[in-house]
């Protein structure tokens, strides 16, 4: 694919700076072509994003994605995908503080099999997809959180996260602390349950008006 022909230097550079700056926070990382995926500690999401935005030049937040890892929780398989860090929630977390030079420097195909499971996998993941203009490189920051655990809202850093976080709140019931206006965005306020959670049936619980 095209990614192979593209110069990956800017991404690698950005990642090295990030890792040097936040050795404690970065849990896991991999990149495919110009796309870098980094998992960080939940508490450090704001400083990491602030660094990436103001110092590493990732001037645009493309999207915020929420994921429910319920199905992969009991087994906790290690991620074994060739071009990614595997099913994120299932991929076991590294002990806090461990750095990841090895994985970061690796070429695309060899990364993934990071470490053995040591920490219980968490229920939800939130992914922040960043983009750097005009160099056209992407970075994906993710955090894992257990059920009922809140995460800091990144709206103060990237305003574009506003509705995306509301959407995740609406669909998963994840609480974003510090969000200016955290309400349901799609569903009516009286709706019960969070549809994109894996334990929510497709047809809904009550059905119809």
């Amino acid at each position, binding site marked *: 694919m095209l990614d192979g022909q593209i110069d990956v230097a800017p991404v690698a550079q950005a990642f090295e700076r990030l890792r040097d700056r936040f050795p404690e926070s970065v849990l896991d990382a991999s990149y495919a072509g110009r796309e870098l995926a980094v998992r960080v500690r939940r508490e450090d999401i704001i400083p990491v994003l602030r660094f990436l935005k103001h110092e590493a030049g990732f001037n645009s937040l493309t999207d915020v994605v929420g994921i429910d890892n319920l199905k992969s929780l009991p087994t906790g398989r290690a991620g074994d995908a060739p071009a990614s860090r595997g099913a994120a929630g299932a991929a076991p977390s590294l002990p806090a503080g461990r750095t990841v030079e090895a994985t970061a420097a690796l070429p695309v195909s060899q990364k993934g099999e990071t470490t053995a499971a040591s920490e219980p996998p968490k229920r939800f993941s939130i992914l922040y997809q960043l983009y750097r203009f005009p160099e056209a490189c992407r970075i994906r920051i993710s955090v894992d959180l257990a059920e009922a655990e809140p995460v800091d809202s990144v709206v103060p850093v990237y305003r574009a996260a506003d509705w995306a976080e509301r959407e995740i709140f609406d669909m998963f019931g994840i609480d974003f602390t510090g969000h200016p206006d955290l309400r349901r965005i799609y569903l*009516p306020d009286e709706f019960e349950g969070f549809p994109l959670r894996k334990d929510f049936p*497709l047809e809904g619980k009550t059905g119809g*008006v």
Partner: protein
Amino acid sequence: MTESGERHPFLLAKLDELISWSQKNSLWPFGSGLACCAIEMIATAAAKYDISRFGMELFRASPRQADVFIVAGTVTNKMAPVVRRLWEQMPDPKWVVAMGNCAVSGGPFPTYAVLQGVDKIIPVDVYIAGCPPTPQGLLHGLITLQNQIARSHPTLEIFDRDARRTD
């Protein structure tokens, strides 16, 4: 003609003819687009299909002035009360055309958020299948509705209703 139609007094029958003629030739649709089907509804009003030939191009922005409610698109549970209210705001006599599979039966969305057919909240006169129906399909549906109106006996229905009330 139904049996009751034959018993209809001549003058009233003629009046009926006039009323249903005017009603069927002046179906002003309510300009309500819900989803994908709305685009095909607009395409029906545009040059190639030209709904105005039937006197139906006056898409009314206000439900008070509309005759036919073309439910063009997916009715979600959040939208359902609104659709119901819009229908209630339309003055009688009014007709409803369920355009597209979503309005007919929920279409490809058997999910928690979608009303499985608009006929659960308002009575539907004509169903048009398709996802979305082509403009020809919509025109066919509207002509079907016209024929349906042409067969109706507006005054007779009033008497019938009164008769039912006195019962």
